[in-house]
């Protein structure tokens, strides 16, 4: 998101926060969020793709509502207004093709209006079909979303998809690149959808109307960088908005300004000195390399937590409290606590929909605790790694943390009794705490080597340099 877009969103959220009429408020949030899907989509070199991807996002969101909503709520009679607004937005954006003026959205020239009309008709037909299918269709939708995620996160498959789309579009396949296939916010959108489908299958999902559901999934402040909020809290705020009083305005403003400072001042300055794929092979001295690695570690924290603060601030202005994502993660004395405080909404998601079910399943099978811990920690962290990208570097990053969490768990288990009896005074506890923080931070920082660099050889070179091994 650019600074201009962020400021525009904040202004819009402030207006929403001042509106007293709930239906008007919901309608504006819905429309703004839908338009944001188009406005924030990066421009792509494949003709029309930066229009079709947001369209696909909206179609998937609507289908997932059909899958999760009670059958009594799915009728066209009840939902035609919202569907008509969505179709109207698509056609209006499509009509800008014929205007000779530069508009902020869509990001490039939209496809021909007839193509959009045809797409709307096909999507409507598919939606009608999905609306009639039983609840198992939710599992199919989850599988489709995971398939899309794998394609998007895998450079090879993304490039392959790009080549295929270019061929369909009669564009040069030689120029195909993984970067052609950037789908705005899909990772976050798909995780919100999976959360609602799984909760629906488990009977835990609260009822949401179509307009509420779409607004939840593509809520504009959290579209690009999360957090991955839960629907029940969102609906509660949406239906019972607290008035935007002085205190709330101050809270929101503070959070927003802190977020801007973290992202655009601290993180962007640190980016100039942080480890990256260009400088990884240029530095030959361990001291400089450690400093660059630490700069990267803090750049990542301030960038991401800055965006979260901005999203929370804008959300508060609009009357929606988004969940916290970071709680001083680098000041935690062990790896388990680090992961309880870093990208919290993602780890909570994985805990709810992967780690806990897997642990329960393994316990039922009578597997020993250490084996369960090893399996669940490593597989969860591997999946979190792959969520960031399907590459060996992310696999290693996931393994690094999975094994680290396992060791931390076993170490705590073995040493807890000894620690309780031997570390009793306040100074001892402080020293132990500080040692834990330093050790954990450095372990996490070393893990970022895999995260920051695209190739294993590069990561290996950086590791050797960090520990003073210079291969020349």
């Amino acid at each position, binding site marked *: 998101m650019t600074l201009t877009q962020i400021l525009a969103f904040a202004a819009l959220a402030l207006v929403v926060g001042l509106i007293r009429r709930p239906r008007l408020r919901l309608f504006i949030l819905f429309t703004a969020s839908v338009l944001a899907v188009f406005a924030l989509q990066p421009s792509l070199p494949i003709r029309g793709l930066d229009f079709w991807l947001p369209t696909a996002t909206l179609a998937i969101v609507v289908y997932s509502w059909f899958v999760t909503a009670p059958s009594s709520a799915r009728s066209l009679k009840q939902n035609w207004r919202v569907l008509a607004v969505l179709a109207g937005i698509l056609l209006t954006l499509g009509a800008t093709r014929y205007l000779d003026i530069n508009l902020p959205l869509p990001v490039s020239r939209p496809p021909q209006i007839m193509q959009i009309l045809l797409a709307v008709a096909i999507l409507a037909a598919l939606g009608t079909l999905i609306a009639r299918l039983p609840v198992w269709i939710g599992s199919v939708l989850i599988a489709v979303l995971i398939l899309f995620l794998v394609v998007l996160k895998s450079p090879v498959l993304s490039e392959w998809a790009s080549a295929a789309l270019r061929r369909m579009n009669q564009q040069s396949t030689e120029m195909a690149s993984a970067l052609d296939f950037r789908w705005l916010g899909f990772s976050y959108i798909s995780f919100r959808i999976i959360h609602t489908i799984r909760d629906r299958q488990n009977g835990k999902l609260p009822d949401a109307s179509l307009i509420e559901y779409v607004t939840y999934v593509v809520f504009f402040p959290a579209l690009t960088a999360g957090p991955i909020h839960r629907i029940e809290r969102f609906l509660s705020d949406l239906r019972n908005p607290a008035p935007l009083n002085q*205190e709330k*305005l101050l809270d929101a403003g503070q959070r927003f300004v802190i977020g801007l400072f973290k992202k655009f001042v601290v993180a962007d300055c640190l980016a*100039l000195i942080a480890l990256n794929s260009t*400088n990884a092979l*240029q530095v030959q*001295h361990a001291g400089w390399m450690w400093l*660059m690695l630490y700069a990267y570690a803090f750049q990542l924290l301030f960038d991401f937590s800055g965006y979260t603060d901005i999203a929370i601030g804008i959300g508060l202005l609009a009357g929606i409290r988004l969940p916290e994502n970071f709680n001083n993660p680098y000041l935690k004395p062990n790896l388990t606590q680090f992961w309880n405080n870093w990208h919290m909404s993602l780890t909570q998601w994985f805990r709810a929909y992967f780690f806990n079910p897997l642990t329960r399943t393994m316990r039922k099978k009578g597997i020993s605790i250490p084996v369960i811990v090893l399996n669940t920690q490593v597989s969860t962290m591997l999946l979190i790694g792959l969520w960031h990208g399907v590459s060996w570097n992310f696999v290693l990053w996931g393994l690094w943390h999975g094994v680290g969490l396992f060791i931390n768990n076993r170490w705590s288990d073995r040493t807890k009794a000894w620690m309780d009896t031997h570390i009793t005074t306040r100074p001892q506890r402080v020293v132990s705490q500080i040692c834990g923080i330093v050790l954990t931070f450095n372990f996490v920082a070393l893990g970022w080597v895999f995260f920051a660099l695209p190739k294993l050889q590069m990561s290996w070179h950086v590791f050797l340099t960090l520990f003073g091994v210079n291969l020349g």
Partner: protein
Amino acid sequence: MELTLAEQPEVKSKEKINPLNVIFKALGLFIILNILFTFLDPGNMGKLSLYNSIFPGRSRLPFGENPAESYNLSLYNLNAMLASHEIAGAEKAGDEFRVVLIGDSSVWGTLLKPGETLAGQLNQMGLTCNDRKIRVYNLGYPTISLTKDLMLLDRIKAYDPDLIVWPMTLESFPWDKQLSSPLVANNRTAVLNLIEKYNLPLDPNDPDLVTLTQFDKTLVGQRRNLADILRLQLYGFKWGATGIDQVYPETFEPAQIDFEEDITFHEFVPPALQEQNLAFEIISAGIQAAGDTPVLIINEPILISDGTNSDLRYNFFYPRWAYDQYREMMLEKSEAEGWNYVDLWNLVPADEFTNSAIHLTPEGENLLAAETSQAILERVCTHE
């Protein structure tokens, strides 16, 4: 004892804060700060530098169009530029013979690593001048303008040089080139000082010179310059870590050797290039600015092409007639004025040029360094 809500002073004070008051106060402070900022000289901000203390000083002046890869950037704040250079942090030892090189991109060293530039190669020779160790500093700066060179020369006297070496080429002489360098154009005050101090025939109201409005002097108006200074400091980290200050592409487009049938030089056509068409006054001002410090002027090597129409042109910059006349004029002028002048125009073979008719390969620089060192030793050191 449990506190009641009324007894919690933090909550109470928070409720009292009026967001509108906060906004108005912030706005007021912002306006006051901006107004106060207009009274500061923006140039002075560059004097604060992390170079030569936290980060090592740069081997050459900051210049770069791709900061993300070169860890270097172009800015217009002369103080910041000089403060980032190693010369600003180099205390002159008693046995040091300090040589400062000024000039264009061929001196700065486009496509060359710091050690491959003329200054770098001269330093590697381990020369001495009357038992003093010669230490050469590269203060060349890309863009071709004698006025730009003079502006730097006027500033580097502060670093107590024992000799100033000033390689130059005809392209830096035409009057229309003098103020077009962005570094010159964006340092109007410095240029006006030079005009006044050395009575230069340059127009103080030339539209090329950027005049700051009152708004431009505010914090908001100066945000680009401030950001540049900050970025220069931050890139010092990577300069220190990597020693890289330029992008070195694996391939580049070589200097042009085939030309159109064109014999014009700027707006000049044969037969004659008049002395008043060229800015010889700037050289005189430079020598005056150097004071007691000797100045060695070098007519820098150029590419002598053997391609299409090379009977008309030496290279992309110069038709033969204009360049030949310039060389004659330089020789006559230097003899008449007593300038210490060496003409090395044809020293370097054509295959030792890189992407321009004045940019040399490391081997080309090596040839130039050999001749320059000889000139320093024979023309300057023997007279000490």
